[in-house]
Each structure stands twice: as C-alpha cells, then as structure tokens.
C-alpha cells in the first residue's frame, strides 16, 4: 500500500510537471503570435518584452508571489513534502510542492504575456518590464489568493476551473488599464473617426503562435484538474482535453465564417483569434459540459471575439493583437458560460468573482501604470514610433536584411 502511495504520488507529480511544461511552452506561443501581428520595425522589441516578462514572472513569483497567493506566510515556496508526511496523509498529500509551484508559475507568465500584446508598438520597454514586476509579484497573486488561494471568492462559490477570469480576464484588465493611459498607436485612428488598418508583418509566425498556444492549453486546462491517479480523475482529465480541443475548434470555425460574412474574405487573423477565444471561453469550466456543449461555448467565443475586436476599434481602444478581446471579453463570457454547464456555479458567485477580479485588477493596474507614467513615461515618442521600437529600444532589427 505504501508503495502504491509512493507511485501514485510520483504519477501525479509527473502529470503536474508535464502539464506545467506545456504551459511554459505557451510563452513562445504568445511571443510568436505577437511578433507576427506587429510591424517588423517593432518585432525585436516585442520579442524582448516576451522573453524578459517570462523571466521576471518566474523570479517575482518565486520571491513573493507564490507566498502571497497560497499563504505560507512570508516569501518563497515552503518546504517540500517529506516521505513520512505523504505516507501519513494516506494519499491526501499527493504531489510535490515544487511541482505545484512550477505549474503555478507558468500561469503567472501567461497572464503577463497577454498584456504585452495589447500595448505593443508604442509602450516603452523598461516601463513595461517594471509593470511586469508589480503585476507578477503582487497584483496577480493578490487576486489569485481570493479564489485558488482559498480566499473569499472560493467561499462565495466562484467557479473558475483553470482561470478564464483569474488568469485571462485578469491579464486583459491590466492590459486595458495600460492601453487607456497609453493611447493608440500613432496613425491608428484618423481625425474623422477612420480606423486605419496596420497589418501584422508575419502570418506564419502568428499562426505558429496560435497552434503552440492551443497545444499548451492542454496543459493549462488539463493540469488544472490537479490530480490524475485514479479512474475518475483520469476520466476527468481526458474530458478536459477533449472539451478544450472542441472549444478551440468551435471558436476557430465560428470566427472564420463570421469574418467571411462581415468582411468578405477569410481573415486568417480572426480565425487565429477565434481559436484562442474558444480556448479562453472554455477555461472556466472545461470539465462539466459535454463535448458538444464545449464546442458551442467555444463557437460563441469565436463570434464574440470578432465583434469585440471591431467594437473596441470603434471605441478607439487600440489592441494590435486582439488580446483584450480574446482574454478579456471572452474571459467574461467564459465565466458566465459556467452557469450553463455546471451545477455548482451560481450567478451571484460568478458575478462576484468577475467583479472583484476585474475591478481590483483594473484599478490596481491603473494606479501602477499611472505612477510609472508619471515617473518614467510609458509611451514611445511619435518619432520613436516612426523609426520603430527596435531602433529606439533594442538596437537590433528583427530582419535587418529585408528592409535594406
């Protein structure tokens, strides 16, 4: 029996690590998506932001974030489980504490990755990274503690399986706050209400990014079941995999068709956003719905994301990659969709969670962005935007030969 507990523990820990590695791999997914959706003169800079924010998220979450979110009182991660503890628990302690940290830390990075896309092409590099320090060390963990850390939102019956709200909407709220203070890219909106198209420079990269994110999402949602080692849990993880996949498929098809109807052509970027929208939409509850329900919830997400992208543009909220729509608007939809499939969720619980996370994150982020803006500035000058952030901030062109 003890041997079985030992092996179970190993299996659950391994499951957690593999799922975490998949989530970690979402980092290049975001990086490629964003690199493909900006102009080439800003590509090295967005890449630099993406690699640096990932590293910052890891460091800040290790030093303070994890302790804020999951208690442990103080800094750093707590001690690893001893064999005696595990055996004494009779299987209640069923995975390594380190594996838990690993799985959690890659979520923080995901939340932060959302932001870099929304503020792309006009945000100063170091101001952004400073925000990343605060966001990953304090803002994200604070609101995360309310639900996953066992705080008041978990008491309020708020259901958010893998983080449509806690991760995605949270990132989008912080992004929105930044975008409002930052303003649109130079030339994005004309004086008479024109919305000018600014094309992304590299569609294969954007597509690769989307597929990597889809792949990584199996870890994101699949790992959020937290346990694998018996029949029920294994069935649950499998169900989560299938539902996650179906939601992405539904979102992609819905967005592609809607774009075809609205715009006359098969807008690839909308299809990419549609798949991600489906994924965000199902993330709050990828377990309790049927496969077909999940597909439909994803499809609705795909419709929403197209409308949201067009709508934000109308409101002159400039988001080069559609991050606020994908993660914010669809994050909200995901939280609401829980009510369709889950018996555990209540309208009040969901609204409480939604309001608390959105309100807190938006306000906290607004304050932090504002302070950074006052002290260092956050917006690249028009001249820097003209020559591009790569020249202004990085000194290395993404494709130095192509524009020669």
């Amino acid at each position, binding site marked *: 029996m003890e041997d079985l507990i030992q092996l179970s523990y190993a299996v659950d820990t391994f499951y957690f690590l593999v799922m975490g590695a998949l989530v970690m791999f979402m980092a290049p997914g975001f990086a490629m998506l964003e690199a493909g959706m900006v102009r080439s003169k800003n590509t090295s800079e967005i890449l630099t932001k993406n690699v640096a924010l990932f590293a910052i998220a890891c460091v800040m979450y290790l030093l303070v974030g994890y302790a804020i979110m999951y208690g442990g009182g103080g800094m750093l991660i707590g001690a690893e489980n001893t064999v005696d503890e595990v055996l004494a628990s009779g299987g209640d302690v069923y995975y390594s504490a380190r594996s838990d940290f690993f799985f959690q830390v890659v979520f923080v990075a995901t939340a932060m990755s959302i932001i870099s896309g929304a503020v792309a092409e006009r945000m100063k590099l170091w101001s952004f990274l400073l925000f990343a320090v605060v966001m990953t060390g304090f803002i994200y963990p604070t609101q995360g503690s309310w639900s996953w850390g066992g705080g008041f939102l978990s008491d309020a019956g708020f259901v958010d399986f893998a983080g449509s709200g806690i991760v995605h909407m949270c990132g989008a709220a912080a992004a929105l706050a930044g975008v409002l203070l930052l303003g649109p890219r130079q030339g994005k909106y004309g004086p008479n209400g*024109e*919305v*000018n*198209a600014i*094309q992304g420079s590299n569609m294969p990269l954007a597509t690769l990014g989307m597929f990597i994110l889809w792949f990584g999402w199996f870890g994101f949602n699949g790992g959020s079941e937290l346990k694998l080692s018996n029949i029920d849990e294994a069935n649950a993880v499998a169900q989560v995999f299938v539902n996650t996949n179906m939601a992405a498929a539904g979102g992609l098809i819905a967005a592609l068709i809607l774009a075809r109807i*609205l*715009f*006359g*052509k098969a*807008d690839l*970027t*909308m299809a990419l956003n549609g798949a991600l929208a489906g994924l965000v939409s199902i993330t709050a509850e990828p377990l309790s719905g049927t496969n077909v329900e999940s597909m439909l919830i994803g499809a609705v997400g795909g419709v929403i994301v*197209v409308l949201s*992208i*067009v709508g934000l*543009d109308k409101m002159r909220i400039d988001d080069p990659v*559609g991050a606020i729509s994908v993660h914010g608007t669809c994050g909200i939809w995901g939280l609401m969709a829980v009510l369709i499939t889950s018996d555990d969720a209540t309208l009040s619980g969901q609204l409480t969670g939604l309001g608390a996370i959105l309100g807190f994150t938006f306000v906290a982020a607004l304050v932090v962005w504002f302070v950074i803006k006052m002290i260092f500035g956050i917006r690249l000058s028009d001249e820097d935007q003209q020559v591009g952030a790569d020249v202004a901030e990085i000194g290395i062109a993404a494709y130095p030969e192509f524009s020669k």
Partner: protein
Amino acid sequence: MKLITAIIKPFKLDDVREALSEVGVQGMTVTEVKGFGRQKGHTELYRGAEYVVDFLPKVKIEAAIDDALQDQVIEAISKSANPGKVGDGKIFVTALEEAVRIRTGETGPGAV
C-alpha cells in the same frame, strides 16, 4: 545612347527579358517597385478596418542601349508586356550621356 525604363507587371518579367534579348539587348537591371496609376487598387479589410491597396507590385526594367535600338526595344517591350489590360505599364526613354563598363573601363555604346 538611351536609357530605357519599363515598368511592367511582375509576371511578365521573363517574357520581356526574352524579347529584349532577341532584339540584342545584352544587359538590364531589374528592381521591385510599387506602382500607382490608372489601374486602381482595391480596398481590403484587415480585422475589420479598411485599407486601400493603391500601390500595386510592379517590376522596373532599366536597359542602356544604343540609340539605333530604341524603336526595336520599345516595340519588343510593348509586345511582350502587353496583355492589354489596364496597369500593363509604361516605357520611358531618357538620354544617356555616358556608359562605363567597370571591369574594362570601356566607355560608350561598347560598354552597354
């Protein structure tokens, strides 16, 4: 000598190059350009926002030739680059005062 500059549709490049070779043009230089003209661009939507594609991809051919060849060259280009649609392009002729072959230092018509 003359410098003949032709702006044509990209997929006609091979045809024009052959036609020029046939009338005895031994060298030319080609540039990728964008053209704006009577051939109207079209409006596209990118993520719901309109943009006008008014600069269309063209290819510019420059060939320095002997004066005597001018008519033949113009005819060769005109025929080979002409599917008879708007946007087929232009030919411009300017006077060339001097030409030098760097390798040999030759000048004048012998250098082109």
